[in-house]
């Protein structure tokens, strides 16, 4: 419905706006990639009308499927869609600079902080807290994965990947490569049988 309102001025002003938007989103979004993707949808679709909603869904799917940080990938798809390769470079720079400066600042104080007894204790306790946060995330991800239908091969992959990494020290990269090859093979096989 809103498609007519979409404007695409491919000029310097757009690039500056794009940089400002990704910089802003990246600087103030706490809570990881999935949150930033939602905010990008709000900003690019509802506020600026740069991208229509349906297309944004697909672009979001690309950002989530491709390797790399989701926030960065989101900036790349939006940048590419709006202004091609220059758009990609501008929006990635905008997305990367805020965490770069924030962590640089934290690093400066980190060593001094670590010496302090109270902060050392805080960080030690937070280690247990982070462990719990990760454990909870894993449990929820497993529930989501097997919520709709329990696929045996996925369960086997999960158990196998865990054992391979924890007990045999097999690098994550090899595990992912195995899964990619398996996934492509499975997709082709299903396609061959006309199940798609």
């Amino acid at each position: 419905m809103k498609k007519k309102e979409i404007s695409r001025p491919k000029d310097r002003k757009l690039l500056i706006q794009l940089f400002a938007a990704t910089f802003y989103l990246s600087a103030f979004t706490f809570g990881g990639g999935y949150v930033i993707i939602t905010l990008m949808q709000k900003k690019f679709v509802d506020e600026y009308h740069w991208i229509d909603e349906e297309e944004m869904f697909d672009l979001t799917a690309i950002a989530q499927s491709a390797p790399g940080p989701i926030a960065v990938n989101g900036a790349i798809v939006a940048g590419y869609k709006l202004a091609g390769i220059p758009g990609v470079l501008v929006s990635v720079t905008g997305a990367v600079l805020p965490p770069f400066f924030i962590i640089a600042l934290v690093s400066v104080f980190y060593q001094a902080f670590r010496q302090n007894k109270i902060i050392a204790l805080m960080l030690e306790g937070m280690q247990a807290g982070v462990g719990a946060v990760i454990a909870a995330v894993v449990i929820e991800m497993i529930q989501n994965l097997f919520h709709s239908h329990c696929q045996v091969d996925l369960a086997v992959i999960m158990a196998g990947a865990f054992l391979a990494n924890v007990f045999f020290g097999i690098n994550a990269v090899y595990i992912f490569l195995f899964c990619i090859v398996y996934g492509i093979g499975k997709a082709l096989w299903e396609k061959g049988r006309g199940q798609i």
Partner: protein
Amino acid sequence: MTYLTLFLSFFQIGLFSFGGGYAAMPLIQHQVIDLHHWLTIKEFSDLVTISQMTPGPIAINAATFVGLRIAGPLGAAAATIGCVFPSCVIVTIIAYFYMKYRHMDMLQKVLNTLRPAVIALIASAGLTIIVSAFWGEGQAVSLNGIDGSMAVIFAICLFLMLKKKTNPIVVMVLAGVLRTVQGLFF
């Protein structure tokens, strides 16, 4: 030489972290702790904590943190560029084909088989942090050596996360405060 090593390490992290956020953790752990010994497990879990509390993807945070530590600002830049470079190329190519063909069945199918592996590897990295929290870094894992108060803090946090859906940042700060109170007064 160091710049190149940093670039290539984080290039691999960027290239193989599917699923964002926590998914990069096992890869960072492998490169930064096991392979190059740039950080200890304690420093790594500090990094994960700091990443949770600041905006920005953990991979970018790790690149900046490690790069600065090993080779100053230029090192941080080399690591960060290495980390986003694969994304820039791969995502742009996929976006190009999407604009042209609007067809993504295959991508979805491959992603589906990757998800369980991603979960397993996040669990594995989480386990490293939990073991380090309960037994101390590099200590033998035994029932006697376990730090009881850390186990209790962990249990409280897990309960809050799963049953009360408390905000993760609140949970982590609470864990830190509990440990501080326990360490100072008991």
